[in-house]
């Protein structure tokens, strides 16, 4: 028996070593790649959830003009119409996320990237945008203008 070990005993020993080595190698690779991929994942920044922001004094906004307002980390476009009423929309184009602008000459909200157009209700009327812009509500408190999310 000792002089001639059974071939089965040899294969199982070989197999065991194979598993041990392969397992060790996988474990080693995992112990390198797990930290590496975790590192690459950007850590969550504490972002304050914004529900309304102060846009400015009413006198800051001229009629027939638009202005981009910082709403948390997103841009919002605040437009004062010719009749001096306010409208606010999310300023991120629904097509490929450029920031839109108000064109008083055309009377539309226009995206410069691919000539997308929205009317003053935020509806996509021409060009590639697939969806209307989300509307925000504008609240006037005394002489100050606030923008807030539509609940």
């Amino acid at each position, binding site marked *: 028996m000792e002089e001639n070990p059974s071939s089965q005993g040899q294969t199982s020993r070989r197999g065991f070593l194979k598993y041990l080595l392969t397992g060790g190698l996988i474990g080693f690779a995992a112990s390198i790649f797990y930290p*590496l991929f*975790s*590192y690459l994942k950007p*850590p969550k920044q504490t972002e304050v959830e914004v529900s309304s922001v102060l846009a400015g004094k009413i006198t800051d906004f001229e009629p027939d003009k638009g202005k981009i307002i910082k709403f948390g980390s997103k841009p919002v476009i605040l437009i004062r119409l010719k009749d001096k009423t306010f409208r606010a929309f999310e300023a991120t184009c629904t097509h490929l996320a450029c920031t839109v602008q108000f064109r008083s000459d055309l009377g539309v909200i226009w995206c410069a990237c691919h000539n997308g157009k929205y009317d003053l209700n935020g509806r996509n009327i021409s060009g590639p945008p697939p969806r209307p812009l989300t509307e925000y509500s504008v609240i006037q408190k005394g002489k100050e203008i606030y923008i807030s999310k539509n609940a």
Partner: protein
Amino acid sequence: MKNLLQKFYKWVDERVEVKGLVEYMGKKYVPVHRNSIWYYFGGVSLFLFIIQVVTGILLLFYYKGSSDLAFESVKFIMSKVQFGWLVRSIHAWSANLFILSIFIHMFSVYFEKSYRYPREMTWVTGFIMFLLALFFGFSGYLLPWNELSFFATRVGSDIAGAVPIIGPPLKTFIRGGEDVTGATLSRLFGFHVALLPGIFTIILGIHLILIQRQGISEPLHMEKKKEKEKKKMPFFPNFMLRDLLLWLIVLNILAILAVYFPAELGHKADPFSSAPAGIKPEWYFLFMFQTLKYFPGHVLFIEGEVLGILLFGAAGLLWLLVPFWDRKSARGEHNRLINYLGIFAVMFIIILTILGWVS
């Protein structure tokens, strides 16, 4: 799987004829003798350089190279990014081991006289990489923008400024102005992540091609033996597998050091605060720093510090040019003087480093 690989190899070989190159590389042998262990330190240095490149790129994803943001971004890496502390600690430890490994590699080559004809160019490229590694260390040290690094950079660049003639413009060049400011940070950041890695990679390439082309150096006593009596092992796969095993061990040492002794951050640099007590340069500059302390204010008509810098410069030049003035080794004769000089250099570096450490 194996079949697929073979097919791919054939596909590539058909187009660019790699067969000859592979055969050529397969003929590389490593001499086996009692000092063979020293052959491993070149490979270890290479491995640590690769670690530096990888962890350096990872750090670049979050690091911000400006005096307003540098400290905060490193703090962010250390506290907010998952395993950020590990990546930075490995980068810091690997930098130190890299320089240590280069020192060992350089001295082992020196004592074996492997720089002798026909390997002068390998020695010179290695020496240039040694200087680059020191500058890597110097420039990287400032990047966290903490108190220690700020004042160390001030002192270091000031010493560079004491060199006659080229010193003052060199100092202004390193600092990007009269003083260490945000401009210095931007500059050293540029050196550390773009200029130095670029130059280093090119010279490393030349260094490795030379070794591949000339084969690994045999010690003098072996050179005279008959070809049949020489013991050697093939580089592929025998030596390479041993190399890889050692790399694995080095990686584990790095992990242990990084986990138990993570890199510190300290306080943010404030140009208008006093230097903290016990400020010291990194250990690999310590022996030079300490030596300069022993020079008197004035030696004859020359400033003591300037004389010290000039002497170090002369010693460095002598070291760089050793393959060209050590004629005896080039002829295959033993040169005792080289050994004595080498032992003196090693003792000098060790003793002054210790003196600098305890003072």
